[in-house]
């Protein structure tokens, strides 16, 4: 019985259980004066959960453990020379066996008989079914695959029986539990709560997944490049490993990338914070509902535009504009109309990213400013302060911690942004303090090292993972700090 069919059967049993339990309880409720703790629906649900949940758990455990058990049994049946001596070889052999066995399930009885003759007979048959078998497959692997399928079949048979039995037994137990004082509702709600907890732990799982998916490659990177050189190196120059060259020299200094990241983020914040903050203040404190209802969504559109469009905007409009502007300016002051702002520069990327971040700042701050209690405003106005004085001296200071938290969140966005920087600031990893020159960021290098033509198992590519983890830790730090700040802010009013 396939897993799908099995799950369907269990679910059907669950539905049946639900209907039975529910109608039984509502029947009992009418004709007796017993007061039931829970509504019939809950009793039905209780029954259904009792039927389905344990059965599915059994199924999951079985499915996972049977894989391991059967794999081991088959593995032990293969001779050492076929299996290979290293762990990697073993894995490869087992991989071939399992793809043969998967292929065998597609064959009919006649073909199976033929395939049993060995790999040379099996290969074309499997190829006809679209199953590719690695070139170094051998006869014993076919035998192993047959054994594998046999075990698999037995396991499937028993699995069906055990799972259905589990459903029936647990369902039956729930049936005996039907009664006035059974807290079916509490139990059902307990299960729902469990599901809610499960959902909220997905965030944690994602984080673990992210770390796990990068940690191995990072380790390999650090095996060839000392961490000290990576974290404190001031030159980023992961040279192209020449074809055939064994040694892959290059310098992997993180600092120029980090500096570029922070610099561009800083410029972006310098653009976004004043504009966003003033916009938020104006909307929260001055604007009428009409202006607010127009301006707020319009500004938020800026946040919804894909970053690739911003990158495009930077290359096509902002970069040339800044360059020409600078040429004009230097023309006026020095008479030499050469531009001092390069089309691709920290300034361009920062400015465009700043535009993108305006709505983040304005929306978050707007919320925080409106959250400042009215009493603060009244208190200040009542003393004869003007509105702007009230805002500058009372509201903003009061909202400051919250705003700082919001800005930190915005900053972590700026740090993580990729597409705009690729297009607007370039990929040159340099250490400079001149904002009119190009710099680059960590994210850009992650993308370019991963999508380049470099050798895939060289440090040049692996460094992307080290960069990824570094960035992850960086934003994590920012967020922990932001949470801490926001907490402190909340305490003030509570």
């Amino acid at each position: 019985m396939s897993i799908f069919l099995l799950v369907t059967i269990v679910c059907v049993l669950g539905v049946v259980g639900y209907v039975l339990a529910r109608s039984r309880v509502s029947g009992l409720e009418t004709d007796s004066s017993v007061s039931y703790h829970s509504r019939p629906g809950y009793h039905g649900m209780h029954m259904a959960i009792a039927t389905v949940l344990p059965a599915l758990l059994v199924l999951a455990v079985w499915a996972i453990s049977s894989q391991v058990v059967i794999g081991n049994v088959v593995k032990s049946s293969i001779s050492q020379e076929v299996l290979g001596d290293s762990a990697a070889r073993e894995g490869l052999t087992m991989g071939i066996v399992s793809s043969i066995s998967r292929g065998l399930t597609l064959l009919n009885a006649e073909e199976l008989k033929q395939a049993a003759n060995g790999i040379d007979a099996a290969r074309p048959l499997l190829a006809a079914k679209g199953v590719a078998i690695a070139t170094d497959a051998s006869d014993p692997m076919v035998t192993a695959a047959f054994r594998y399928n046999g075990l698999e079949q037995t396991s499937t048979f028993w699995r069906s029986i055990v799972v259905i039995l589990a459903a029936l037994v647990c369902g039956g137990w729930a049936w005996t539990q039907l009664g006035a004082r059974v807290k079916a509702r509490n139990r059902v709600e307990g299960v729902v709560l469990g599901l809610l907890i499960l959902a909220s732990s997905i965030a944690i799982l994602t984080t673990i997944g992210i770390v796990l998916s990068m940690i191995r490659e990072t380790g390999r990177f650090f095996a060839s490049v000392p961490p000290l050189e990576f974290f404190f190196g001031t030159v980023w120059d992961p040279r192209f490993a020449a074809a055939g060259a064994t040694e892959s020299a290059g310098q992997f200094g993180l600092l120029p990338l980090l500096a570029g990241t922070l610099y561009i983020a800083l410029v972006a914040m310098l653009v976004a914070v004043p504009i966003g903050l003033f916009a938020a203040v104006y909307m929260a404190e001055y604007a009428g509902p009409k202006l607010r209802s127009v301006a707020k969504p319009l500004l938020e559109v800026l946040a919804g535009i894909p970053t690739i469009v911003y990158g495009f905007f930077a290359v096509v409009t902002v970069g040339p504009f800044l360059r020409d502007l600078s040429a004009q300016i230097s023309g006026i002051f020095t008479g030499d109309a050469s531009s001092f702002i390069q089309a691709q520069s920290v300034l361009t990327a920062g400015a465009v990213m700043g535009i993108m971040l305006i709505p983040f700042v304005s929306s978050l701050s707007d919320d925080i400013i409106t959250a400042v209690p009215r009493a603060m405003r009244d208190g200040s106005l009542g003393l004869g302060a003007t509105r702007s004085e009230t805002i500058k001296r009372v509201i903003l200071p009061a909202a400051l911690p919250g705003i700082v938290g919001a800005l930190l969140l915005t900053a972590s966005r700026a740090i993580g942004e990729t597409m705009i920087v690729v297009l607007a600031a370039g990929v040159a990893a340099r250490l400079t303090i001149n904002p009119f020159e190009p710099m680059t960021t960590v994210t850009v290098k992650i993308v370019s090292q991963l999508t380049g033509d470099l050798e895939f198992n060289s440090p040049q590519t692996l460094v992307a993972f080290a960069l990824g983890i570094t960035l992850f830790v960086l934003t994590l730090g920012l967020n922990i700090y932001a949470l801490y700040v926001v907490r402190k802010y909340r305490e003030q009013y509570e």
Partner: protein
Amino acid sequence: MNMMSDAATEKAVNAPADEPVIKMRGKDVCVFYGPKQALFDVNLNIRENAVTALIGPSGCGKSTFLRSLNRMNDTIDTCRVTGDITLDGEDIYDPAIDVVELRARVGMVFQKPNPFPKSIYENVVYGPRIHGLVRNKADMDEVVEKSLVRAGLFNEVKDRLHEPGTGLSGGQQQRLCIARAIAVSPEVILMDEPCSALDPIATATVEELIHELRENYTIVIVTHSMQQAARVSQRTAMFHLGVLVEEGDTDKIFTNPDDPRTQDYITGRFG
């Protein structure tokens, strides 16, 4: 109120002058929130250097009237005021009048203590600073000390002037708010249920303070506690459903009101 009742109660008010001086006058004051009228033709005079209590059941418009005295109503978009309100004979709703200046002259203390989330010192010095009444550190220290002393808070907080004002107890916070209000030397202080969020002991302190402040300031206080009104005020005005029912000397209102609604209210028949 009419002349006669004023004259009759003159002696009861221990004002130094023979003639009671009118600090603020409300004439035919109507207040609207959007289409809804909250006050109907209120005519009420506020005497100088006296405490005037506004009483009445919930929603009768006490706060509304109070807030119209220093145009705090302006901050509510939908709110509209008609009629005349004068301060020292000047119409405060005259476009030529500056509301900032007005509010510096007519200060306000709110129901819930609302110190700014700053230090005690900064709280007090805030008003004088924005109005440019203090020029240097010495000025500021002086104004802070004077105001806190007046508000009866100085001894309790003098060692922690630079700690946050939000860290004080409720009653202390409210006295801090009063100190903050008197720091700008207003002529009138409006108080909207200043004690309703305080415990009995704190309430007593604040009431005592009000009693002392009366000598230098004109005070208007809203309260829902008739006992409090009786304790602290010289004049009482009773509102009901947006109408000024009766106004007069506190003693008279509480012992021998003219209006049956006032009678009912003070005897607890409603409210």
